[in-house]
């Protein structure tokens, strides 16, 4: 968090100021567009990064702003992936954009129902309940093999070209732009949400639930609302994943995926939206390159980076950057 500017007496002005766009915020988009032209052969990896950013962004909404720690966010990623996948594989609906929206909607519904039950709980209990929800969904998907394809995965998805024009080719160029557009929309929504009055009450709930109850804020419904929004976004990421790969397996609901997105977000820094960008980019590229360099022992490198980041950058990479900048500022003044 940025230290509040103590010379500003006007709280509304302060909040509006935080919502104002800063030039540096153009950076991720410039990099993403630049990468397309500089590294056209790396768009498969680029699309993976973007999917992960959307997924991590969805987690940031609940973890970073409402303080809900989830170890089962893959439940919604998977729900979106399976919804879009089954729509195409079983009903033959292969138009990507409507398929994507359908995936998001189904995941949102799952998020609403599970959130309504789960969000009455806190702390480790909530953590375990989210974890168990995802695993039980995975078990369910395994049992419903007729529909989901079980362990062997859901085959037979076919997607029509985007706008009837752009096919998902071997180089993944068209889908890179598609993913980037989905990310941009998700990001604008998330940014609007966290800076709204609603977003401020979430932070209030995170910081002091009792006080929010005391001032009459409908805490449970606020949490369910943001949880549903987050699940929808995770579902969009999952749906995108299904369309990119034209294949979905039980792995989309796995503990490993839930864990990975949590790691990514903490690595980047929570409660600042851009943490998802930094964390996903660093983590996905690091894992990819290390696994190429040493297919057997890459996990050591990833683990070492995580440990070093925690020891030297408290609050993730962006958190560390923030405190470094603050120290620099203090040293100067």
């Amino acid at each position: 968090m940025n230290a509040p500017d103590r010379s500003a007496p006007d709280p509304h002005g302060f909040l509006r100021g935080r919502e104002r766009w800063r030039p540096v915020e153009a950076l991720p988009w410039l990099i993403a567009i630049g990468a397309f032209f500089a590294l056209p052969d790396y768009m498969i990896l680029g699309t993976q990064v973007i999917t992960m950013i959307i997924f991590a962004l969805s987690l940031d909404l609940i973890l970073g702003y409402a303080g809900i720690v989830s170890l089962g966010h893959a439940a919604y990623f998977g729900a979106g992936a399976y919804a879009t996948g089954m729509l195409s594989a079983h009903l033959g609906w292969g138009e990507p954009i409507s398929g994507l929206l359908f995936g998001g909607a189904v995941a949102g519904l799952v998020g609403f129902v599970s959130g309504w039950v789960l969000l009455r709980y806190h702390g480790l209990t909530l953590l375990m309940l989210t974890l168990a929800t995802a695993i039980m969904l995975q078990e369910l998907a395994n049992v419903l093999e007729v529909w989901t394809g079980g362990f062997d995965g859901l085959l037979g998805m076919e997607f029509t070209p985007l706008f009837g024009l752009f096919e998902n080719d071997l180089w993944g160029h068209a889908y890179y732009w598609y993913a980037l557009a989905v990310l941009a929309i998700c990001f604008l929504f998330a940014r609007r949400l966290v800076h709204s009055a609603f977003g401020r009450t979430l932070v209030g709930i995170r910081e002091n639930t009792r006080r929010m109850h005391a001032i009459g804020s409908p805490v449970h419904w606020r949490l369910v609302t943001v949880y549903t929004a987050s699940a929808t976004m995770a579902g969009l990421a999952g749906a995108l994943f299904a369309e990119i790969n034209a294949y979905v397996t039980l792995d989309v609901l796995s503990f490993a995926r839930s864990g990975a997105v949590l790691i990514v977000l903490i690595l980047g820094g929570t409660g600042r939206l851009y943490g998802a960008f930094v964390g996903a980019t660093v983590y996905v590229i690091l894992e990819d390159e290390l696994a190429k360099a040493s297919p057997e022992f890459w996990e050591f490198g990833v683990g070492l980076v995580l440990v070093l980041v925690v020891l030297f950058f408290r609050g993730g990479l962006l958190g560390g950057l923030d405190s470094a900048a603050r120290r620099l500022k203090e040293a100067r003044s």
Partner: protein
Amino acid sequence: MKRNFKLVALTAATALTAGLLVAGASAKEVKIGVVLTYSGGAAHFGEQIGRGMDLYIKQHPEAFGGHTVKLIKRDSKRPGGDIAKNAVQELITREKVDLLTGFVFSPNAMASAPLATKGKVPMVIMNAGTAWIPSLSPYIARVSFTMWHSGYPMGKYAHDKLGCKTAAAGFTNYPPGKDSRNAFQTGLQEAGGKLVESIPMGGPRDVPDFTPFFQRVKDLKPDCFFVFVPAGNHAAAVFKTYSAVGLKAAGVRLIGPGDITQDTKLQGMGDGAVGMITMHHYAADYDNPENRAFVAAWKKAYGADTTPDFMAVQGWDGMAAIAHAIKAQNGDVTADGTINALKGWTYRSPRGSITIDPETRDIIMDANVHRVVKKGGRLMIEVIDTVPQVKDPCKALKIGKCAK
């Protein structure tokens, strides 16, 4: 930043040079993308297959017709499909590989199959065992096995020779397990036996505590208990649970595919395993000249206390198939050329004679009846009977998805 990484990756990718010095102009370097589970719970499968491949290249440089191969290794990590698919896509578009191989888990092969078709790159599958995988792309050939290769003959053999009039089946609840159960059941019923109980014993990643399932079988008292679980820790637990629950004393015979008497686990099973019977396509104790040479070279390369298992021989045979395809096309590897060269290809493998079925592009091989014996203080596998040249029965009998 990225460029540096690429450099590192390139240097690290194992470049292997085959021996023969041929006039520079005609010798080509064939790039092979290898997708295996090098990390995670199935890392030992990747290791066995990878070592088998490396060993073949080292032992038979002449088989490549004067050309060399460069292996570009990628970790498929989990059985999720997407990681393998992304790796394959990258291997095709960025590394421009001529050929793809490896594939431990079926979902990884299934996710990658459309890319083989789209990118016109041949795929030699070294493990992924779901029966109908080769039908997913015309550019797939498989040198490993399907669960039907062992399960179906085992059903017949169990009824005819082991006196299994009634049997129960326990299997890990995922496609290879269900395939194995179906194969056994089909074979058993055709011979006149009856499957009285069929027990899914949890998923491949669940805790391998099989006691409740085995207790259930003990209470049912069938003549035989057919078990399939994935090789490794799950398989090791099968025999232990069998003795611990007292199924042997209750007169129930434990049978299954060779995964439950895997070479790397055999010595840990204890003397109680003597007499156990399984059906499989390879064990390190096979007594034929090809296998003796293979095992000797293996022990020399990787240590006397290590042993190859069926995965290793699949890696070896897969590389032999690739070498044959490279030689047949004189180094200009294409998808059609490779598949044409492999159709009907016959090889004397350490597991015996193998052929790629020209029709299904799947393997034809012997199914051997293994018996555990004790010789010279160690447990060994003895082949007591052979069902010659089994063609994947799932496709031959046109069952389920295999009918396509």
